């Protein structure tokens, strides 16, 4: 299928430069590539590799006035896009080259119905009558397998789930049957099970229409599933180019090898030789014990603002974590895993029993509660958002010591310096502000901060999800080392099954606020009993083109909502032991 003689898109020696504080900097250097008709080309690389800039350069949508194409040509068929003026370029965008972005919520206009947004782009490029435009929009929605397409036209973006919204975006992009579709991280913001569906949809549509696709991604699993050809980029340069199978089996460049080595894989069990057996832990040995935890949020509505609905975010979750142990809580967005973490960290009110270090949190006075707080620390998902940007990192790490009145000023700064060294930063970086660090370094600062009080339990809420794979691997290694050294227990919250398999001792799978399966890592991964667990594991794209699946695991229906009317509490699932402490919910 790559046999077409003349490439549809031909980029020659493209350079993009961005004007910054200290002059112009090249973010894409001397990039040449061709895209054949019907081909899928993946551009893979970590953040800052220039892959998104390349996409924007093709679309002539570089952020103005800072970025510009400094040299090179972008040929679409016979036209050189770099020479076109804005008016003529507008006619090409959407009609011949379409683009879908990462975040389907922000790239749809929240105040316009999806029908309006769909028809708008069709109207802009065709001279069809209103009825025909509508027909075309409905067809486009049907093509992306959206049910009841006609009534969906009236809906607004917030009424649709993330996966649905991304499908609408794809429908919009493909409504005019463009020659080239550029998809910039189209599934990164989506849950794994939904990701599978969207990828499959893209593949099918491409097959039907013969569209050429440029897929930009950081996820080597997605590359393996989708690509005919791969370009690996780093620091704005192409590092390697080749057929997908070749790149994965015989990577030439060192960087490609590193990148592939850093990708967490399910079933490889990197890092831990044997998962420790679920020890027969007595209650006293447990660092944290959670019993029948409920978190519910009341929603006000109706004429008098009375509570009429309730979000059942966490419904009767129980687990325990021993010292030196990592319990992973996995599930998709909205399953209540982060809310569980927040309840444990004291950020949201809850009901049920939480015992930390032998002390029950409820019924404690203010000072006692503050003392218990010392034992539970949290590392958040986004290291950019979880550090106060106006404080120096040294002050931030020293702050917990200061608040709890530990150590004198001099001792404090010594301790902070030691912590910095321990997490792989240098002590003279203490004077810097958070924005002066990279994402991985910032997450190290967060780790140092969490460690400062020598807690018994660290809650890591998606703590490595926002990081590049190579950085992710190093941060995970650091976490493991620290556990060995300090004997701290982790509650590791993640949606990424591969990462979870890499770090956890025990795994609990959450679905709609309840645990549906819990057991040791081996029990859950090699013998998943609950259908939801199985679906989660199957949905993860495998970074190996030889294991490409013809069909992805698909959800039978959308995940139901955790919001319910008052008096309609969800059914509580009973967990059944299927041997050696492997707990599975009965299918309901």
């Amino acid at each position, binding site marked *: 299928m790559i046999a077409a003689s003349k490439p549809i898109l031909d980029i020659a020696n493209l350079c993009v430069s961005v004007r910054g504080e200290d002059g112009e900097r090249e973010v894409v250097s001397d990039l040449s590539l061709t895209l054949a008709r019907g081909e899928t080309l993946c551009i893979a690389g970590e953040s800052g590799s220039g892959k998104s800039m390349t996409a924007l350069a093709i679309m002539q949508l570089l952020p103005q006035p800072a970025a510009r194409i400094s040299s090179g040509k972008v040929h679409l068929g016979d036209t050189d896009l770099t020479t076109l003026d804005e008016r003529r370029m507008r006619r090409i965008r959407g009609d011949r080259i379409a683009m879908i972005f990462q975040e389907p919520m922000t790239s749809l206009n929240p105040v316009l119905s999806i029908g309006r947004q769909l028809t708008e782009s069709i109207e802009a490029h065709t001279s069809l009558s209103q009825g025909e435009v509508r027909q075309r929009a409905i067809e486009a929605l049907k093509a992306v397998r959206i049910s009841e397409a006609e009534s969906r036209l009236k809906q607004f973006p917030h009424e649709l789930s993330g996966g649905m919204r991304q499908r609408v975006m794809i429908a919009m992009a493909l409504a005019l049957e463009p020659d080239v579709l550029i998809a910039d991280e189209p599934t990164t913001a989506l849950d794994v099970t939904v990701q599978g569906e969207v990828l499959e949809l893209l593949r099918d549509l491409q097959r039907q229409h013969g569209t050429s696709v440029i897929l930009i991604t950081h996820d080597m699993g997605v590359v393996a599933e989708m690509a005919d050809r791969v370009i690996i980029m780093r620091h704005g340069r192409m590092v390697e180019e080749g057929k997908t199978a070749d790149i994965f089996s015989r990577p030439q460049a060192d960087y490609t090898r590193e990148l592939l080595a850093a990708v967490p894989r399910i079933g490889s069990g990197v890092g831990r030789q044997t998962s420790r057996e679920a020890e027969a832990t007595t209650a006293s040995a447990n660092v944290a014990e959670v019993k029948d935890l409920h978190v519910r949020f009341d929603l006000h509505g109706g004429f008098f603002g009375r509570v009429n609905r309730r979000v059942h975010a966490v419904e009767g979750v129980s687990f325990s974590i021993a010292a030196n142990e990592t319990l992973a809580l996995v599930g998709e967005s909205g399953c209540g895993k982060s809310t569980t973490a927040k309840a444990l960290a004291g*950020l949201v009110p809850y009901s049920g029993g939480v015992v930390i270090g032998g002390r029950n949190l409820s019924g404690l006075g203010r000072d006692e509660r503050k003392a218990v*707080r*010392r034992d539970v620390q949290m590392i958040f998902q986004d290291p950019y958002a979880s550090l106060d940007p*106006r404080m120096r990192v040294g002050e931030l790490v020293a702050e*917990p010591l200061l608040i709890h009145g530990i150590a004198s000023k001099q001792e404090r700064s010594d301790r902070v310096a030691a912590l910095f060294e321990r997490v792989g930063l240098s002590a003279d970086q203490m004077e810097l502000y958070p924005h002066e660090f990279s994402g991985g370094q910032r997450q190290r600062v967060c780790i140092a901060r969490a460690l400062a009080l020598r807690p018994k339990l660290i809650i890591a809420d998606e703590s490595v999800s926002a990081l590049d794979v190579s*950085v992710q691997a190093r941060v995970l290694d650091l976490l493991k080392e620290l556990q060995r050294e300090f004997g701290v227990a982790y509650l590791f919250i993640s949606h990424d099954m591969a990462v979870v398999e890499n770090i956890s001792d025990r795994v609990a799978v959450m679905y709609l606020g309840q645990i549906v399966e819990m057991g040791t890592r081996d029990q859950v991964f090699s013998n998943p009993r609950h259908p939801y667990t199985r679906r989660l594991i199957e949905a993860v794209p495998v970074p190996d083109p030889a294991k490409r699946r013809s069909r992805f695991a698909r959800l039978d229906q959308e995940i139901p909502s955790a919001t319910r009317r008052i008096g309609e509490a969800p059914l509580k699932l009973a967990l059944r032991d299927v041997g050696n402490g492997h707990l599975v919910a009965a299918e309901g």
Partner: protein
Amino acid sequence: MTSPIAPDLTAPGRMPVKPRAGVWRRLVRRRLALLGLMIVAIVVAGAVLAPWLTGYDPNEQMFDGLTIEGSPLPPDAKFWLGTDLLGRDLLTRILYGARTSLIIGIVANGVALFIGTLVGVVAGYFRGWIGSALMRFTDLMMAFPALLLAICLAAVFEPSLWIVAMVIALVNWVQTARVIYTETSSLAEREFIDAERTIGASAPRILFRHILPHLLPTIIVWGTLGISTTVLLEATLSFLGIGVQPPTASWGNIIFENQTYFQAAPWLVFFPGAAILALALAFNLIGDALRDILDPTQRGRA
């Protein structure tokens, strides 16, 4: 793979740590901020040194201060900025008026800013019934005509400069409170505030160490905008006879006394108006520079 302990040196942000110059030093290094500081210094010096800078009494009506027909004199060698309707030297009145206007612009505005920030921060951070009560009260104050309120307050108290300043403060805090409230409530949702709570930080600590610094840019902008608003509000009050009592000069009442003669004697409105504008602009320039200097994320950017 590199060892996890090896420092992550790939970040572009690494730079040698420079000792940070004090805020004052960095302020005077900026040309526009320096200009602002100089204007403020001139105004303050003029107000303080008024008796020595001018030979006239601000309230003395001079015979040679009016033409034969009784109209004010334009600027000349004797009366540098001309004279007003009653034959008083305008330069002298502006110099003495600076005392009033500075007190109003700095004290009244400062108090208004303080009340507004306090109400806004407390309502925005704690929400709940405290927040609702405070914000409903703010809405009430907003809906109530500010001038009417000022008139009521001024009628209750014996008019004096300080009472006028308090009246202006009590009227002017409302907009600040509203803006600070909105910003605080969005800041309180940010993840680093959650992170502070997980390490056991108390509410006052979060408010003063982590939320207030982020509000500084807004506070500075409202503070500088407030200077001209309050000076003009004082003028309005003077005009209605409830502000600074005549014959005491203030920039505002100089304009109001003379505005009907604007076409015949434009300098009477132009010079005090220019003084208000210059003062407001000066504080704006300083405020702008301060905002950039106090924001660590702006460091090293032009």
